[in-house]
């Protein structure tokens, strides 16, 4: 009866959902879900800025110098995230800067950790026998088509202005879809260069092979939207990103206008009802 088998868990301040085909052995699915969720809880212990004695909090407060990471049991993972943060900072011309988050600016790699963690948890699910699955970490999604590459996953993108509806549906075989926005948590993304909240776009979705990067790119684009030229800047950056990396983007502005990169239409599904609505190329 059930076409999909699903498990959920509360972790990292959100809810993570893992889904696999209904034909998956229940015990195998449960074991894979347990392993994936346990890994996310462990990452949360290490990287949470809200836990006063987490390694990340200690780095932020200067109690754990970066030079000590070589001997730290979590050193490799932390260095991986720090490297990722550095890469995203460079890619975004400083709009994403884990060392200057919020006001006053402080170290907080959260914008990079969730996608990175979900990417690892998804890999763990494959290792535990789920070649075809979806992992959704608070709206950031990693998809694997497994042995059934002919059947893409259908990924709804929420409409930030119409709760309960989706703006569109992307068809993705293998890859990631990450969305950052101001709907759920308010204007929580700041541009470190101006220390102002980013409000020029209501929502940024980025899709590509890797959830770590997709999530970081979406957050970075949103961080660029301060000031009157913010959306133009973010769109120009996303266009350039699409040309450089192949990662495609879809944005929604505060008035509800949508925009997307030229490669995104290849992922759009086309209901029959809309097939005749447009004559333009």
């Amino acid at each position, binding site marked *: 009866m059930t076409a999909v088998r699903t498990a959920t868990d509360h972790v990292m301040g959100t809810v993570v959902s893992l889904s696999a085909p209904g034909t998956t052995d229940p015990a195998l699915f449960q074991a894979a879900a347990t392993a994936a969720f346990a890994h996310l809880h462990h990452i949360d212990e290490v990287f949470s800025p809200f836990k006063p004695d987490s390694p990340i909090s200690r780095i932020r407060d200067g109690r754990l110098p970066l030079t000590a990471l070589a001997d730290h049991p979590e050193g490799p993972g932390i260095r991986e995230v720090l490297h990722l943060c550095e890469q995203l900072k460079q890619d975004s011309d400083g709009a994403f800067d884990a060392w200057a988050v919020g006001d006053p600016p402080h170290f907080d790699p959260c914008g990079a950790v969730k996608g990175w963690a979900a990417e690892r948890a998804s890999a763990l699910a494959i290792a535990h026998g789920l070649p075809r699955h979806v992992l959704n970490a608070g709206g950031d999604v990693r998809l694997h088509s497994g042995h059934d590459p002919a059947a893409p996953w259908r990924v709804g993108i*929420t409409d930030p202005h119409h709760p309960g509806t989706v703006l569109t549906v992307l068809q993705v075989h293998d890859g990631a*879809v990450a969305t950052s926005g101001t709907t759920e948590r308010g204007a929580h993304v700041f541009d470190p260069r101006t220390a102002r909240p980013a409000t020029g776009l209501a929502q940024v979705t980025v899709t590509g092979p890797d959830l770590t990067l997709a999530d970081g790119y979406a957050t970075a684009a949103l961080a660029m939207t301060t000031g009157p030229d913010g*959306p133009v800047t973010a769109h120009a950056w996303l266009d350039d990103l699409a040309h450089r990396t192949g990662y495609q983007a879809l944005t929604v502005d505060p008035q509800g206008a949508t925009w*997307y990169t030229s490669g995104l239409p290849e992922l759009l599904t086309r*209901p029959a009802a809309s097939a005749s609505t447009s004559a333009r190329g």
Partner: protein
Amino acid sequence: MRKTTMALLATSAGLALVIGAKVESATSPHSALVATSGPPGAQSPAGGSSTNPGAPTAAAPSGGTSTPGSAGASAGGRFTGSVVDTRYGPVQVQAVLTAGKITDITVLQQTTGGHSSQIDSYALPQLKAEALQAQSANIDVVSGATYTSDGYAQSLQAALDAAHR
């Protein structure tokens, strides 16, 4: 003269759209893409108009018009082009000619108003047609702005998870 002008306007519309992003980022007060001098009611309202890209405007009908007395050999005045169906949506421009040269171009009709709308608008017809209710969209998973644990309870993903449990 008139045919030439109309062709010129159509070309100008395409040109203006191509350079749209650049013009906007320069925040030129006389951006070719912002209706600064169109007749009242001709410009699409800023924002919120994205669901009716085909809505008629109060501007001149297709085919193009010019203000009385301005289409003569003087090659000056205000000219309204026909509605041009571009890849960005239907666009109508108004041009001011002075001594045979275009000195200003104004967009009277565009599929959506507001900032950066010229680039935005090409996305709308397809996307809004697919603004589907999740229940009928047969979706597997929902990507959205990060929800809190509380927000999850109201999310589409929660509904999907509940249905599959």
